[in-house]
Every structure is written in structure tokens, then in C-alpha cells.
């Protein structure tokens, strides 16, 4: 029914496996796209920043994910000695928030994307591959969850569970899997009709083997693209929820930085909000650029465009 409301891509993706046999080709095709190269470089830099955070800036004791407070330098502008990017209205170092905030973003996006991909792909595969009443039941559940825009559902769940970063992660994971389920189901339904699946059945492969060897590898490419785009989306969503105030106060989180800097903006203290938001933007933008480029590389149709 609501299939029309959430169109599945009619574009056929070349299989990732067939392509990965020519992995070098994907890599070379990616190198040709300047947006993809640029996006990848920014992602690598951000990941390095998250991994080596303690080397870049000394962790705060006792909790490294709480902003260190310097009450002698409140609202210091960027360039102040010891506070390269300035400080927040409560004396938190903005650079510290930027660097250690990357760890929060990484934690959030990796956990949420892993959960929604695993749940979504499982549900979508079962629905598409088994079919019948199982499909009907699963898809009606998906319809119900999709009746609420994703971020609104996450906002409500996080609000009900109470403000904390952990609950933000939980809320996003609970509300986000439906997109993957629909996409996976559509792919599986399509692949199921391919001739090689018929021939596998003819030679007597078990259903599980057909699924594992033929269906899954051939329907996973669009999932990879969507997962890449989701890495950016969920950091954006997480920061939005944190900005609203659903993360702990003083947590090194980019959305928190924007919220902290919000009040000072009218009086010209632009830096806290600007740097926090800029990080979220760069993160989301680079994953969107890479995901978008990946779609072009994996989608044979786009080669002619």
C-alpha cells in the first residue's frame, strides 16, 4: 500500500561482489570523483582526531567527556593563550569540545548505524525472502513505525526515557531501522526473480544457502550506500537532540556546544556555536558526499551520466 509514499529506487545496482572482484576499479572510479576524495579525506581526518584525541589535547579528569572548566577565562575569544578556539559561557574550552566531541559522534554513528543495518537487513530479508503472511506482518509493523517521522519518534522516545546521551543513541536506533528494512525487502524481492536464483534452486541448494550465497550479496549494494549516508544523518540527528537539551549538560558533544553558544550570539560571541555547528556540518557533508559518490560508482546506470 504505502509503497508509493516511500519509493524504492528503481535503479538497479551492480552487485557489490561482482564489483569487489574488481575492487581496484571501484577505487579508481572513486579517485576520479573530486567530491568523493574530498569527503573521504575529511572523514579520515575526523576519525584520526577521534582516535588520537588524548594526544591532541589532554583528557579532562575524572571524566574525559565532560568539558574542562576554566573559570578564569569565561567567554574568551578565539586566540586566547591556552584556548585556541575560545571558551564557552561556562569557561569550557571550545577546542576540547570539538576534539573530544568527535569521539561522541563516532560512538553514536557507529552504534546506531550498526544496529539499524543489522535489524533492518534482517527484517527486510525475512520479509522479502520468506514472503506470505510473514512479509505482511513485518511490513505492517514497518508502516506503523513509519507513521511518525524518524526524528520526531526519536525525540519522543528520548524524552520519555529521560535526557542522556545514551538514551539519544537508544532512541535513534529504535526508530531508524525501517528505512533499511524497506530497502532490503525491495532488493530481495527483485533478486529473488533472477535466473541464477532459479538455477540454484534447480540444483538443489537449500533455502539458507541460496539466501547466503546468491540473494544477500546481490542485494547489499544499496544498503552500503544508505549506511554511508546514515553515518552523516545520525550525527546530525544526535546533535539536534543534544541541542534541544537531551544530552547531559557539559558533555563534549557538538550539538551541546551550539546550545551553549546560543545565548552569546546576540552579543557577538559567535565562536562556541559556530565551531560546534561547523563540525556537525563537515561530518554530515563528507559522509553525504562519499555516499552520493558511492551510489554513482555502484550504480551502472550512472556511468553514462
Amino acid at each position, binding site marked *: *500500500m*504505502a*509503497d*508509493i*509514499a*516511500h*519509493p524504492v529506487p528503481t535503479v538497479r545496482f551492480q552487485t557489490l561482489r561482482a564489483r569487489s572482484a574488481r575492487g581496484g576499479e571501484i577505487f579508481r572510479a572513486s579517485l576520479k570523483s573530486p*567530491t568523493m576524495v574530498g569527503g573521504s579525506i575529511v572523514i579520515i581526518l575526523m576519525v584520526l582526531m577521534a582516535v588520537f584525541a588524548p594526544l591532541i589535547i589532554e583528557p579532562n579528569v575524572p571524566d574525559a567527556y565532560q568539558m574542562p572548566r576554566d573559570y578564569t577565562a569565561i567567554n574568551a575569544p578565539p586566540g586566547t593563550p591556552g584556548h585556541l578556539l575560545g571558551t564557552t559561557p561556562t569557561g569550557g574550552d571550545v577546542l576540547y569540545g570539538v576534539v573530544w566531541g568527535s569521539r561522541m559522534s563516532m560512538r553514536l554513528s557507529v552504534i546506531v548505524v550498526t544496529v539499524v543495518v543489522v535489524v533492518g537487513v534482517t527484517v527486510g530479508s525475512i520479509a522479502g525472502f520468506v514472503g506470505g503472511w510473514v512479509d505482511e506482518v513485518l511490513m*505492517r509493523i514497518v*508502516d*506503523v*513505525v513509519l*507513521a*511518525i*517521522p*524518524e*526524528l*520526531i*519518534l526519536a*525525540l*519522543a*522516545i*528520548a*524524552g*520519555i*526515557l*529521560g*535526557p542522556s546521551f545514551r538514551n539519544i543513541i537508544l532512541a535513534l536506533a529504535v526508530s531508524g531501522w525501517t528505512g533499511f528494512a524497506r530497502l532490503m525487502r525491495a532488493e530481495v524481492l527483485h533478486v529473488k526473480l533472477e535466473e541464477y536464483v532459479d538455477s540454484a534452486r534447480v540444483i538443489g541448494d537449500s533455502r539458507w544457502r541460496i539466501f547466503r550465497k546468491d540473494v544477500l550479496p546481490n542485494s547489499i549494494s544499496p544498503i552500503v550506500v544508505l549506511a554511508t549516508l546514515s553515518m*552523516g544523518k545520525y550525527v*546530525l540527528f544526535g*546533535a*539536534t537532540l543534544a*541541542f*534541544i*537539551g*537531551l544530552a547531559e549538560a557539559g558533555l563534549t558533544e557538538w*550539538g551541546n556546544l*551550539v546550545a551553549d553558544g*546560543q545565548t552569546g*550570539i*546576540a552579543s557577538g560571541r*559567535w565562536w562556541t*556555536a*559556530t565551531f*560546534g*555547528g*561547523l563540525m*556537525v*556540518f563537515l561530518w*554530515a*557533508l563528507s559522509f*553525504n*558526499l562519499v555516499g*552520493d559518490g558511492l551510489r554513482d560508482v555502484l550504480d551502472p546506470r550512472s556511468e553514462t*551520466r
Partner: protein
Amino acid sequence: MQVREYVGRRLFKLPLIMIAMSILIFGISRIGASPIGIYLEHEMTPAEVVELEERFNLNDSLPEQYWAWATGVVRGDLGWSGVSTAPVSDVLWKFTAASMELALVAAAFGIVAGIGLGTYAGSRRDKPGDHITRIIAISGASLPLFWLALLVLIFFYVILGWAPTGRYDVNTWETISHPTGFYTVDALLNGSWTAFGDALSHLWLPALVLAYGAMGPIARIMRSSLVDELEKDYVDAARAKGLPERLVIGRHARRNAMIPTVTVIGHAFGHLLQGSVVIELIFQWPGIGRWIATAVLRGDQATILAFVLITSVIFLTVNLIVDVLYAYLDRRVELGT
């Protein structure tokens, strides 16, 4: 299947989805903290707390609690909003109308800009204009709306002083009644152009910011479907008979390219509803978005549940309209069950 039959089925399914959704959200609400948390006060005696618990049927089983809540909702009793210190049903329409006014204007901006931008890019495929449009669309999906809104507010409010925050100027609206809750409409019904101008001056900036996020997906699908259309035979025929390119696109290709574009509008409206929470917060727009943002911080469950219900009613209705419109526009669509 006929379009009429399809609409009938969808209308039949709508309440079913709503009921299932309300069970889901009510179930989630009972996992969290106790719903009476927001009503508790320090001076309360234990007896009063017990009384409060009883009023919320907390001693009954979950299905019984749901039934008590759901029958209340059907009767128009959505509980007591702790953050508004008023019954939810008293304030709900006022807030919803404010949000709908903002969202509808933003949707109009977003659709017009998205279709325009997509047409521009599609007709200049692989030229610089196409690439720039692609970057605008992708950055629209990547910009944190709350951040963009703050930056825009610095520029237009702090520096230029062009855009007032809030929804109206108190003095202008003193004598004006609110029959609909849509301020632009109310102003016109009262015959006051001053009030109408005031409503618009508060409305345009948040609506534009909100529209920016929704514009991207519309522009991209418009671009790709226009590219598809331009490869078709009828376009060659139109060109061959000497029609200027402007008319080939404007009169032929764009119309057909808009059909697939309709499908993302429902999706884009979801973006608008999501984005309106932070936009209303930053522009101090008194809608459901700002209402929920205060409610989630205080665990005000009556408000949260009402918000989710009203949002999904709006979202499902818009999607239904979009689907029906699409089915009507494109008769080739297979109308499933």
C-alpha cells in the same frame, strides 16, 4: 484498481495504523519514568501521591491503562500538559495552527525552489550549474538546521534588524480576534493589512530556513527525472519542429518530470515537521515544536503523547494526499492493496 477504490482502502487503513501507532507510543511511554513525575510537588503527602497514581490507573494492567488513555483521547481528553499548565486539548489547536502555518509556507517555498533548482540543473546536465546545484542540495541535507537558523538569525536579526522573532507584535494584534489560529488568515478575516504585514514579517525568515532543508531532495529528484524526460522521443520531436528549448522544457519535459517529484513531497514534509522543532525553538515560534522541546526535557508525557499523535495525523494525511495525487497524475502506477 480504480483510484476511488484505492483512496477508500487507504482511508480505511489510516485509523488502523493510527491505533497501532498509539499502542506503540503508549507502550514506549510506560517503559520510561512514571507519567506522574511532572505533576509531583514537594508539598504533596504520600496519600496525595497515591491518589495521583490512581487517577492515572497506574495500579492496573498495561492494556487497561492504554484503554483508559485511548478512550480519553477519543473523548477529547488528552490529559494535563505540565509545561503549559493547561489541559492539552485547550492548547493543542493553538500550537498546531502555528506550526501548520509555518510548515505550509515553508513547504510552498521548498517545492517551488526545489522544482526550479531541479529544472535548472537538469537542463544543464554536467555543466557547472548542475554541479553547483548538486552541492547546494547535498549541503542542504548536511547543514544542521539549528545551526543554520542561528547563523541566519545573527545576520537578519542582530546585524540587519530585519526579522523580528516570535510570531506577532503585541500592539498590532491587541484588537484582532483569532478565529482560525492561522495569523495571516486571521489578519485578513479581520480586514487588517497592518496585522497581515506583521504576521508575514515574522513568518518569512523561519519559513525560508525550514524550506532550505526540504528543497534538496525535491531538487535532486526533479533533476534526475528531467534528465530522463529529456532523452525521450517526444522531446526530440518538439525540438525537431523548431520549438525553442525554453518551451521544450517549460511546456513539455518539466510537466512530465514533475510526476515522480510528487512522491518525495510527502517525505519532504516529514523533514519539515522534524526541522520545525529546532526552528520554532530558535525563532521563538509558539508552535507544537517548541512545545515538545520543553516537554521532553521535563518528561511531560501527556504533552509528548499528544504531540506524537498530532504529528503522525498530519504526516499520514499529507502522505495520503500525495499518494492519491500521484495515482491520479500517473495512471500507470500499480495500486497495490
